[in-house]
């Protein structure tokens, strides 16, 4: 009899436990993803950088959507490797679930990111793909595709068959190299008229553009891979009154480039979607934490904006980040 009572007691306890479990999981099932901490390390948190503010906005939207906690860090200067290293150390020490970083391509940064991976923190690399021993999840603009879009634009809009010259920043720049590759892919075999490196100097760009314009046979289009290149080239075109005759295509957006696009000095802009990059960076980190299947590399598409399309609802949102 004693044994039997024990059995009944056990059965009842089990029923109670089962009920509790059912209730508990019904209620708490929805709570997934919350309470996760994600640190986003931008190249800069400077409010003047529309691009990185866009990334930040996207990251915030993703964190809100998934109910995760978000912390956004970043140096004031985009090229400040020391500051980025210090911030990465800090982020690692705070022990988040995931770090989403737009890294500066530097050996020390790569080594530190390796340590972050080893510490069991989910790592997602944005913007600049890195070569690492354990390849992290990458979310970046499809720069080669952007180059291809620019090349195709030049092909279709140039008056007759003409050569395309490229004004790039540095030889070692990964992003610029990708863009250049894309441009070459889209062009006719003899359409490429060489690349000139102008660094970050608008002055140099202006001079090099002048040289390009003076060439024979004339250059039909100029690809400006960064902002100073576009500004310098636009100035050179204006001075030689060849605005519109020689196509000028720029990458990325800024208020100065927008003005150039508006007044016709610039024929097209290949624009990234920073908001999407930030959003997908954080979302992919969270998906990874939930052990969900996802591609190792995610590319953010770029779009071609011309004077006619710049005030469409979609493009306005891209070109004029809302502050």
């Amino acid at each position, binding site marked *: *009899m004693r044994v*039997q*009572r024990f*059995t*009944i*007691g056990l*059965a*009842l306890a089990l*029923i*109670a436990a089962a*009920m*509790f479990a059912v*209730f*508990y999981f019904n*209620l*708490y099932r*929805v*709570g997934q993803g*919350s309470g996760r901490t994600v640190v986003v390390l931008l190249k800069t948190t400077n409010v003047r950088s529309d691009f990185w503010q*866009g990334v930040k*906005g*996207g990251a915030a*939207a993703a964190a*809100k*959507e998934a*109910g995760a906690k978000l912390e956004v860090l970043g140096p004031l200067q985009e090229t400040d490797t020391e500051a980025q290293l210090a911030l990465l150390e800090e982020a690692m020490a705070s022990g988040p679930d995931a770090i989403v970083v737009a890294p500066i391509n530097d050996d020390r940064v790569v080594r530190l990111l390796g340590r972050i991976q080893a510490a069991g923190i989910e790592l997602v690399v944005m913007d600049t793909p890195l070569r690492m021993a354990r390849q992290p999840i990458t979310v970046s603009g499809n720069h080669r595709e952007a180059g291809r879009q620019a090349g195709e634009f030049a092909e279709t809009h140039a008056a007759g068959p003409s050569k395309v010259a490229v004004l790039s920043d540095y030889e070692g720049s990964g992003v610029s190299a990708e863009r250049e590759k894309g441009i070459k892919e889209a062009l006719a075999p003899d359409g490429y008229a060489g690349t000139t490196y102008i660094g970050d100097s608008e002055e140099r760009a202006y001079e090099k553009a002048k040289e390009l314009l003076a060439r024979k046979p004339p250059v039909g289009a100029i690809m400006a891979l960064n902002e100073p290149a576009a500004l310098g080239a636009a100035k050179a075109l204006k001075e030689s009154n060849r605005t519109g005759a020689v196509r000028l295509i720029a990458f990325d957006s800024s*208020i100065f480039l*927008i*003005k150039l696009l*508006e*007044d*016709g000095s610039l024929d097209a802009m290949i624009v990234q*979607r920073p*908001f*999407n990059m930030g*959003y*997908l960076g954080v979302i992919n980190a969270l998906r990874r934490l939930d052990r969900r299947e996802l591609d190792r590399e995610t590319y953010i*598409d770029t779009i071609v904006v011309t004077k006619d399309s710049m*005030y469409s*609802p*979609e493009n*306005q*949102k*891209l*070109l*004029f980040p*809302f502050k």
Partner: protein
Amino acid sequence: MFMESRPFRPLFPLKSIQSSIAFAFSCLILIAIAATSLIGYRLSVAAVENNSKAYIAEVINQVNTNIQSYVDNMENISLLAMTNKDVKYYISSNSFIGSGERRPYEKRISDLFQSILYTRKDIASIMVFGYNGRFVSDRRITTLNPNARLEDQAWYRNAKRAGGKSVISAPHVQNVIQNEYRWVVSLSRELKNVDGLTADGIFLVDLNLNVINDLCSGIDLGRKGYVFIVDEDGNLVYHPQQQLLYSNLRSEKIEEVKRAASGTSFAADDAEGKRFYSVKETSFGWKIVGVAYEDDLIGYKSTLGNTILITVGAVAVSLLVSVVLSHRLSRPIRNLQKKMRMVEKGNFDVQAEVMQMNEIGQLARTFNMMVGQIKNLMSEIIDTQENKRKSELQALQAQINPHFLYNTLDSIVWMAEQKRHEEVVRMTSALAKLFRASITKDQELIPVRVELEHIRNYLLIQQMRYRDKLDYRLEFEDSVLNYKTLKILLQPFVENAIYHGIRNKPDIGTIAIRGMEKDDRIVFEIEDDGLGMTEEQLERIGEAGDGEFRSKGIGIANVDERIRLYFGPSYGIKIQSELAVGTLVTIAIPKLPLEAEVCKTTTAPIVPIEG
């Protein structure tokens, strides 16, 4: 239809009332708690949902009111401009303002716009464009963007088409002023001439989109909830994830919102989770939509978790209570059961204590009555049985074996013929004493002395009959003589010893009869050196009252039973016998001194019979 009928067998075969009660209680409690908590949960979820819906509707209303007030304000400004004479004159195609007089007009209009702008932080700019090419803004010096053609602007075209009615644009970047790219919502309207028929120009008020943005983004609809606005064509006015929507990373239920009437709400459930859409339409066609996620609404998890903990605690406590309660309830029953078991073993002296006046108390009382009845009946039966046996015995005793009498009388006759007078006298007197002893009926217990006398007489007669066969010895301790014994206790054994042991023995046999004290009892021994018995014979003696012994007098088994009946089970007869050696009968009875006259008054057993 044939169905095999099988007796119902419960899942747990419960063998005690306590576990049955406990099980029943527990089931009841569990079902009750489960039901109430389920219903409670459903109710509270429903309540939370309703509250949240009401709350969202309220919030949306607030947003609506605010946006409406901004728009009303712009409307008012436009009315002000419309009715302003300076503005009218300035843009009229009639050239009654000379080019020289333009400056003061411009200044006055600009001052007016500026003063409005000062009071309203939400307004980005106020401008008026005449079809005559003139324009004034709130700024002293206005340079128009040379690359932005007025005719291309949506607000300009729409106002012209609306013909005097105000038009609200979707949010856009206002680029008419050089070097300014501000996100605004524009209200524009065509201004009529003094005659009210011909149109003279377009009036424009820009509302900072920041205002709407801050309004919408500042609204808290839970962790994931948000507010968005669409215009009448379904274009997004504001959405926190507008860019994701444009690049198709997310989708929004625009079509459903377009279809939904103002003040209604609908639910959506897809990969993004279950959520509610509350829609409110403004007077100028925008739809303000609040989106709240269900898991946010029912996000009071900790409280619900606590409730569940409490529920589990309550279940545990009530289970405990049910066990205790069932234990208490079934305790009297178990007590009763214990008493019954004692009765089952034969103890009729138990009394169940009646503690409660409920059914179990009644049961206990009835039980007590029943046990008492049984006890009475039992003692009655014992009495009758005893009386019966006694009368039987007395009858037996009364009729001393007639053969014995005939034989004895034959012997007397024979002795008289032989003229052996002395022997005749002795034998006759012995016979007389023998008879007298068996005639005294009233007393069952007699002194050992009397019994000794009786057996002596009997042996005297027998010895005279079997002169050359029988010898006897009587060895009684003196102390024994003053105790009591049953009447005619020894005679049957002596009789047996003679008839079965000695009579058929070729040579002379001896019977020794001894009486002695042993500890707290008196022991009689009847020993003979006769033929003795085989073991089977010995066993047969034990069988109640039948067989050859019975026919020859009083059965040995009966004697044994008599002793036990009188003195208790620890007394009685023991027989040892060996073939060709002899038989020893040992009789044990308690010491009952003569002085104590106990036995005279009672015929009932002195020692109670134990079961």
